[in-house]
């Protein structure tokens, strides 16, 4: 905790007269492998003393051509690509993609599958926020928070593994429902987690919220006006920390979010600390949603009644000719999706995910565009960091919570 000596940028620091031109400027190359960039982001920073005069983000190091790859996968196969976009929120991306394709198909999803999707995406939100909180704290110098956060994250990953067999690349949501039947005994596991989790959030707050160093490093840092935010395309917790109550789960509910009772937390301070408060409160609200899902989980089928899209049960496939034919058709060829285009938007832990899926009536997507929250948020970096101290860049970047896989796709 030797960081306490680092001067923090307050509102007054911005007003300080800058040295006249003619003073030697330094160009600092931050990244591509800087620990605080969490991935490979390069920032070209020009410094005047300790004050940043210009900043140019350079992205694309993790570009893997996922959008191109969609075009050679059939619709169901492409679900696995969506995991790999934002590797901290794979299920949110699964959900957005399958909702888009289901909209094209006009599929009706049974309530149990919808609720299960809500529950698991909220667990994903917790997972993502925990990684964010842990790494953000470590960036600023609070080591122990990281260890506590990863303890809870481990439990969430175990729950994911229980459901899907995978810890991170779950691909658990499929077009038409879920990939597998929910495992036996999941209620016990999830209940144990939500019972303990609120007290764990209290623990993090004990470590940080009233911590003088934390406050000193985060309060008044990383300010950007609301107009600039909207103009530059920032979404998610950053917007809510500026006082704007926008959340796709409330504004345009999907996957039966309208049946859940939760608040959309906002703050008005619009700094790193406010973003921290918003995300902490979101964790509590997500726990509420998971609890409701757990208590009210509808029974019934977990996949849609659409034999041309959803694989038949194994037993039916072995005993019924028709089911066998469908199975063969879906596995070898895939299913045809009616011509059209949709833009599905959901609220991911980082902000607005949008999947634009264009179908030409064949078994493969004609074009899939992913509007990822990290790409939109990262664009505002120069606006946020120009004029502030170099020591505050780390805190500001951390508060944006971007994932470079999500940015570069």
């Amino acid at each position, binding site marked *: 905790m030797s960081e306490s000596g680092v001067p923090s940028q307050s509102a007054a620091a911005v007003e300080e007269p800058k040295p006249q031109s003619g003073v030697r400027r330094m160009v600092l190359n931050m990244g591509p492998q800087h620990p605080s960039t969490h991935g490979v982001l390069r920032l070209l920073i020009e410094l005047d003393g300790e004050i940043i005069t210009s900043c140019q983000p350079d992205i694309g190091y993790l570009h893997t051509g996922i959008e*191109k790859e969609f075009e050679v996968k059939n619709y169901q196969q492409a679900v696995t690509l969506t995991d790999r976009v934002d590797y901290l929120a794979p299920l949110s991306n699964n959900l957005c993609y399958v909702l888009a394709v289901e909209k094209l198909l006009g599929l009706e999803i049974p309530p149990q599958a919808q609720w299960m999707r809500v529950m698991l995406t909220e667990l994903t939100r917790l997972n993502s926020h925990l990684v964010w909180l842990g790494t953000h704290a470590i960036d600023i110098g609070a080591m122990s928070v990281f260890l506590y956060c990863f303890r809870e994250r481990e439990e969430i990953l175990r729950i994911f593994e229980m459901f899907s067999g995978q810890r991170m690349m779950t691909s658990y949501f499929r077009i038409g429902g879920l990939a597998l039947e929910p495992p036996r005994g999941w209620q016990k596991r999830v209940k144990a987690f939500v019972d303990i989790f609120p007290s764990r959030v209290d623990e993090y707050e004990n470590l940080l919220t009233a911590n003088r160093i934390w406050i000193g490093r985060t309060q008044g840092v990383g300010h950007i006006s609301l107009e600039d935010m909207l103009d*530059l395309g920032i979404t998610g917790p950053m917007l809510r920390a500026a006082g704007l109550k926008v959340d796709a789960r409330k504004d345009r509910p999907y996957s039966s979010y309208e049946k859940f009772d939760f608040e959309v937390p906002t703050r008005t301070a619009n700094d790193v600390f406010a973003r921290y408060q918003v995300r902490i409160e979101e964790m509590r609200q997500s726990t509420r949603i998971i609890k409701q899902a757990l208590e009210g989980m509808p029974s019934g089928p977990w996949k849609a009644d659409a034999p041309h899209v959803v694989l038949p049960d194994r037993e039916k496939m072995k005993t019924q000719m028709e089911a066998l034919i469908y199975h063969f058709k879906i596995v070898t060829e895939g299913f045809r999706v009616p011509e059209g285009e949709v833009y599905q938007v959901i609220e991911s832990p980082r902000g607005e995910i949008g999947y634009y899926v264009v179908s030409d009536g064949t078994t493969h997507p004609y074009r899939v565009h992913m509007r990822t929250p990290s790409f939109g948020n990262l664009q505002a970096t120069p606006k946020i960091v120009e004029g502030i101290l170099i020591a505050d860049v780390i805190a500001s970047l951390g508060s944006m919570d971007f994932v470079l896989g999500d940015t570069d796709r």
Partner: protein
Amino acid sequence: MIPDNLREHAVAAALDSFDPDALTGGKWDRGELTLEIAAAKIASVCGFLKYDQKFVRLSTVTAVDRYPGEPRFEVVYHLYSIERNEWLRLKCRLAGANPSIESVTSVWRGANWYEREVFDLFGIEFRNHPDLRRILMPEGWEGHPLRKDYPITGTRV
């Protein structure tokens, strides 16, 4: 001119009275409104939609390649109005040879990276863009990967 079935949508009607030549078509499909805009008018239309119709957020700009069809490219904009809680899709069609369209960065600064991405991956030029260069692919890369005539596998020899 505006297709008759779109008249009930306030945005389409307002846009039609703002500039009758701008709107070349559109559809209401699966609960989503698509308006086709004459490519030459895109910047003024976006300005009108943002300041007059309160579509304050530009969610994304992307493109679709209809190769070998003509006009080959569709540039697609997704707009969101927080106040009206409404989504809107704009679409401009561009011919395959030297595709070029006016940038909307003067309306939303956030269009900057999205247009760079479309330029990088589709090779569509955005006129009056402040900083039009590749964003995801390395500088000096040849070709535009999301074009349909760009191979998915194989290496150049």
